[in-house]
């Protein structure tokens, strides 16, 4: 998330802060199971409505031109949602190259299909963050408004200039290389040394969690009732506070980020959190616990606007209609919601540095192969 880029860490620790804690099973049944069941039902219904039969197995996806059993799509959503949420990202940037290179779904339809996944994947996290106080519409507003413009542009670039898989994969390769490099960079001592503000926030968070645990309560690092509050709001800047820290941000920069990331993300067919999160960290020194208040609504809105553009705006203005494989998107998204939720429950037990290194190297190498293939065709299809 993400999610997009949703660091699911907070869902775990913060969710019990606002209300009486639920058991793991109770939380899953109340919050996640209805979403997952609903999305699975949407997958079945959309398959019949779009194609007249249930796709999967021996019945290929007509638009994607591929045969794949449904269990593989559910597995794809689960493992990408789980792994990426553990490293603070969302499913889309992993499920896209997997769909293109392993499943061989690499025509234009893959981009709007992936946007279905990125629109639904962060829903569970959004509910958790909102309940926990990681929610501020003033902060989320400007990047989201930017995406209303940016995400209308991307689909035109995709259908007009990047309809061929090879250059499109090269662009995806660039995004993967950036993400892989960033994941590895995040565990280096140089990065950790430069992030003083974030480190202070995390240390205070952990100290509170330890105090809560010592008092026999659930180890929540955020006091009950804590909220991201707006201290100042104008056309020029916005000032927000969370706990005892404040951040001032330029509104035009937030809006510009929304436009720029929206263009790139909707061109690729991903949520955009992989770009938005590191940019917000770098520009405004925000901790991940606050960033999710903007990135999750941004990723969801960006994905919906991009999807809308692929479905209505691009066909109206160019005559090209490239709808998504709805069922493919819904089936992957359903299990991605579960994977991201499971990640939020187990993240604190997982050695994050090793995982970021492994995920970063895999992602970076995959991106490099796409890029190399653009300049020097590889002897195998990628």
């Amino acid at each position: 998330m993400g999610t997009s880029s949703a660091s699911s860490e907070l869902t775990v620790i913060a969710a019990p802060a606002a209300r009486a804690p639920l058991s793991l099973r109770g939380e899953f049944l109340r919050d996640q199971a209805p979403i997952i069941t609903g999305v699975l039902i949407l997958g079945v219904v959309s398959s019949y409505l779009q194609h007249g039969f249930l796709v999967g197995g021996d019945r290929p996806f007509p638009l994607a031109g591929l045969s794949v059993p449904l269990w593989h799509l559910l597995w794809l959503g689960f493992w990408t949602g789980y792994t990426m949420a553990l490293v603070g990202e969302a499913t889309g940037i992993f499920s896209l190259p997997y769909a293109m290179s392993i499943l061989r779904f690499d025509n234009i339809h893959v981009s709007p299909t992936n946007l279905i996944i990125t629109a639904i994947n962060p829903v569970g996290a959004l509910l958790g963050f909102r309940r926990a106080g990681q929610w501020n519409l003033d902060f989320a507003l400007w990047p989201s408004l930017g995406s209303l413009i940016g995400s209308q542009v991307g689909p035109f670039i995709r259908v007009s200039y990047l309809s061929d898989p090879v250059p499109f994969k090269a662009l995806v390769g660039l995004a993967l290389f950036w993400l892989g490099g960033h994941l590895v960079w995040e565990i280096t001592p140089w990065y950790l040394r430069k992030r003083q503000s974030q480190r202070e926030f995390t240390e205070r968070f952990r100290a509170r969690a330890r105090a809560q645990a010592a008092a026999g309560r659930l180890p929540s690092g955020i006091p009950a009732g804590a909220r991201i509050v707006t201290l100042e709001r104008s056309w020029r800047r916005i000032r927000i506070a969370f706990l005892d820290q404040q951040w001032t941000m330029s509104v035009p920069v937030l809006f510009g980020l929304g436009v720029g990331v929206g263009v790139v993300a909707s061109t690729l067919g991903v949520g955009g959190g992989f770009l938005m999160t590191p940019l917000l960290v770098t520009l405004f020194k925000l901790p991940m616990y606050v960033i999710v208040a903007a990135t999750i609504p941004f990723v969801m809105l960006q994905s919906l606007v991009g999807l809308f553009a692929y479905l209505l705006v691009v066909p109206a203005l160019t005559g090209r209609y490239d709808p998504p494989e709805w069922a493919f998107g819904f089936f992957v998204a359903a299990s991605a919601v579960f994977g991201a939720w499971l990640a939020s429950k187990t993240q604190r037990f997982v050695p994050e540095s090793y995982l970021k290194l492994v995920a970063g190297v895999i992602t970076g190498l995959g991106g490099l192969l796409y890029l190399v293939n653009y300049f020097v065709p590889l002897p195998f299809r990628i």
Partner: protein
Amino acid sequence: MKRAFIKVVPVLPFIVLALAALVAAYHIHRYW
């Protein structure tokens, strides 16, 4: 049971990644 679970959780992402590689290899073998 709980102790075994606690031991498995830290390596779970790596198990999941290894399984993902196996499933991808199966798909390539079966469908390409």
